[in-house]
């Protein structure tokens, strides 16, 4: 139903005011109608602006109290004078909204929203967006859209475009305790559900989750810390495998795991040590020392380095020849000893963890790697995530190149989820780690990232600029907010929205998978009903398909 069909009373009811000035770059100033109180307005809400030919969708980013004359504040009558206040409200003193227009919809009913490249004319009417308006922009849940939450004060659902979401790297940000894990769980569950519903193989995705705190595999802690919620394996038992680095911890938590991952010393390369420089407290020279050692000892370099006796004359000569200073060598060895003490490290393993994980992924199974008690050990997390991802990415690259553009031969699209992403993607190491490379090359080799982080300011800005869709919970550190919004045209406006999110269950979503930024109250997760969304629907859909085909 377009505006003209509506009864007048209804349209006037929703009217907020008129566009009085503004620009495409700076946003629009909307003069609030005198009957409207600024107290009923909230930043982050949607509005529609009826231009002469097109309709615009925008978001309220600021509310201001204005006066027509700067002397008015000084000539006002006493506060008790209700009459003067009533007269001046909406005339000499008025509320003003700052609205950023994001989308434009043509005059026809079936016109698709497109980014706004102009602004509505003076005195265009601004109204609160209706449920239908929002539904029209964010789509309805179907094969290619999944629900992430509802806009504030509305009952409709905001959907992310599955395909657009999966084709780029994405980020979930927010300070500690704002529900990042909770959101990431919804995103992962939705990705798995939508992937399972795809008929064409190239549209499917698999997830590899480096599960630092054992939240995604079998069960996770409820938001707020009391009770438990089902995690991926319980929802999708057939398409999720849980791997563990710490079988003891998994047993204690009564998690049935599909495989135990062990890492052989001989699987670690000097490049893997490079990224650990900070967490192992290595000097730059100590890191460099790893390369000649690897050249000399080959794959056994860690074991040999640990066994090496610097008092031996031959060895000392070798170290001197390679200009490895004694202190660097000791520093490196101390670091390697720390690695060797990790319970999943073995001098040599028969099992090829990378191959096992790859086999699962290739068969369309999602893999969650639990870190058990190692989750608190950032060295272990960085080492394993980097080492496995590097190998897996390498294999993907080979497969992709071998496929030579034959899409049927290409490996299934992989989304790798990492937490504490700034450890992998900070400006010092982003150029060395495979994660930096994956983020930069987008989906060239069918691998993208889902990064989860509480300190986005620690992430390299080049990497950040490649992140397609950003889901951000409350951030209050200035530099974190700046980094998340870097490169966004409406940065200043979104900043005020982001800083005013509630500390739970609210997130600002913007980027590739949504047509315009949106603040959502995230979907409820943790009740049987909410699980049903992920489990029953595909089943019901399958049944319907069977009947309709029959």
């Amino acid at each position, binding site marked *: 139903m377009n505006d003209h069909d509506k009864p007048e009373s209804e349209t006037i009811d929703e009217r907020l005011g008129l566009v009085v000035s503004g620009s495409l770059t700076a946003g629009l100033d909307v003069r609030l109608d005198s009957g409207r109180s600024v107290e009923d307005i909230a930043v982050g809400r949607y509005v529609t602006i009826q231009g002469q030919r097109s309709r615009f969708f925008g978001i309220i980013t600021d509310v201001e109290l204005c006066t027509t004359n700067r002397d008015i504040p000084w000539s*006002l*009558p006493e506060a008790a004078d209700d009459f*003067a206040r009533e007269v001046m409200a909406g*005339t*000499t003193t008025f509320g003003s909204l700052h609205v950023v227009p994001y989308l434009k919809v043509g005059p026809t009913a079936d016109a698709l929203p497109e980014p706004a490249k102009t602004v509505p004319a003076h005195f265009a009417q601004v109204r609160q967006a209706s449920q239908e308006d929002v539904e029209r922009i964010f789509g309805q849940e179907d094969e290619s859209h999944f629900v992430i939450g509802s806009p504030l004060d509305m009952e409709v659902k905001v959907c992310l475009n599955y395909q657009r979401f999966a084709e780029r790297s994405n980020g979930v940000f927010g300070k500690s305790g704002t529900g990042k894990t909770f959101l990431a769980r919804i995103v992962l569950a939705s990705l798995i559900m939508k992937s399972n519903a795809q008929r064409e193989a190239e549209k499917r995705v698999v997830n590899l989750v480096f599960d630092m705190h054992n939240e995604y595999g079998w069960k996770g802690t409820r938001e707020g810390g009391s009770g438990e919620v089902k995690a991926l394996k319980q929802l999708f038992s057939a398409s999720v495998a849980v791997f563990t680095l710490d079988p003891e911890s998994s047993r204690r938590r009564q998690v049935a795991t599909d495989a135990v991952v062990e890492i052989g010393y001989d699987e670690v390369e000097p490049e893997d040590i490079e990224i650990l420089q900070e967490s192992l407290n290595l000097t730059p020279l100590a890191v460099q020392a790893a390369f000649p050692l690897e050249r000399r000892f080959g794959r056994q370099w860690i074991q040999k380095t640990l066994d090496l006796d610097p008092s031996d004359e031959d060895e000392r000569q070798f170290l001197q020849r390679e200009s490895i200073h004694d202190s660097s060598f000791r520093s490196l060895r101390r670091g390697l000893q720390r690695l060797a003490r990790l319970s999943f490290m073995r001098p040599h393993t028969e099992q090829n963890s990378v191959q096992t994980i790859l086999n699962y992924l290739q068969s369309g199974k999602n893999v969650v790697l639990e870190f058990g008690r190692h989750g608190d050990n950032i060295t272990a997390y960085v080492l394993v995530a980097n080492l496995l991802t590097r190998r897996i990415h390498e294999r993907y690259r080979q497969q992709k190149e071998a496929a030579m553009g034959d899409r049927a031969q290409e490996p299934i699209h992989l989304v790798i989820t990492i937490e504490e992403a700034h450890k992998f993607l900070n400006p010092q190491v982003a150029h060395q780690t495979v994660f930096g490379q994956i983020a930069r090359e987008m989906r060239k080799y069918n691998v993208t990232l889902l990064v989860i982080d509480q300190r986005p300011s620690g992430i390299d800005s080049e990497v950040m600029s490649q992140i397609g869709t950003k889901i951000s919970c409350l951030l209050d550190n200035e530099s974190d907010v700046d980094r998340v919004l870097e490169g966004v045209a409406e940065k200043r406006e979104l900043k005020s929205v982001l800083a005013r999110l509630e500390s739970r269950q609210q997130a600002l979503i913007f980027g590739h998978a949504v047509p315009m930024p949106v603040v959502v109250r995230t979907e409820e997760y943790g009740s049987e009903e909410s699980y049903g969304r992920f489990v029953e629907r595909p089943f019901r859909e399958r049944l319907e398909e069977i009947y309709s085909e029959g």
Partner: protein
Amino acid sequence: MSKEERSEIIGQVVAADIASFAAQCLELQGAPPLGSLVKTDGPIYAVVCDACTESVEGRRPVAHLSGETDLESFLDSNPHLRHLLRTTFDAVVVGHGDGPALHHYLPPSTTPMFAPVRLCPQEEVARFSQSLDFLKLLLSAAANSDEVAAACLRLASAAHPDRRAFLVTAGKELARLLANDPHRLTAILRRMRP
């Protein structure tokens, strides 16, 4: 007899220009209240903005010093004075009628000389003040325009069923007109507070 004719004649135009006229009252001391809406033939509508009682000869009368304080009984005992004194009032033209239509702007020609002036009845005041466009004319009129505007709106509000709502609407119109002069605005608002 039409309703308009029924309303009593209070004076006669004795001087006129496009934007205002002066009228002499039929009764000594018979000037309409400040701010009241009057009309002459045409009709041309105007708001009373000033009134004056003076000697017809242009000289200032001499105080009688008799101790009589009631003016009417003093005049009764000195009937010649009614011919030596007169009361006139000035009115700012704020609109005119054209058939059934009301226009809240200046008429095409001046008010005719010696035209009878009548006080508008309440229904007509209500009808005329449906639109507040005349306030601009009122505010730009000469001295005391703030007092006149406030008085006019006070009187007009009595003709509307919701007095306060009328005054608020009128106040908002004033606020728009006086956006650049908030001191003047607040002064008027204080004078028309319900």
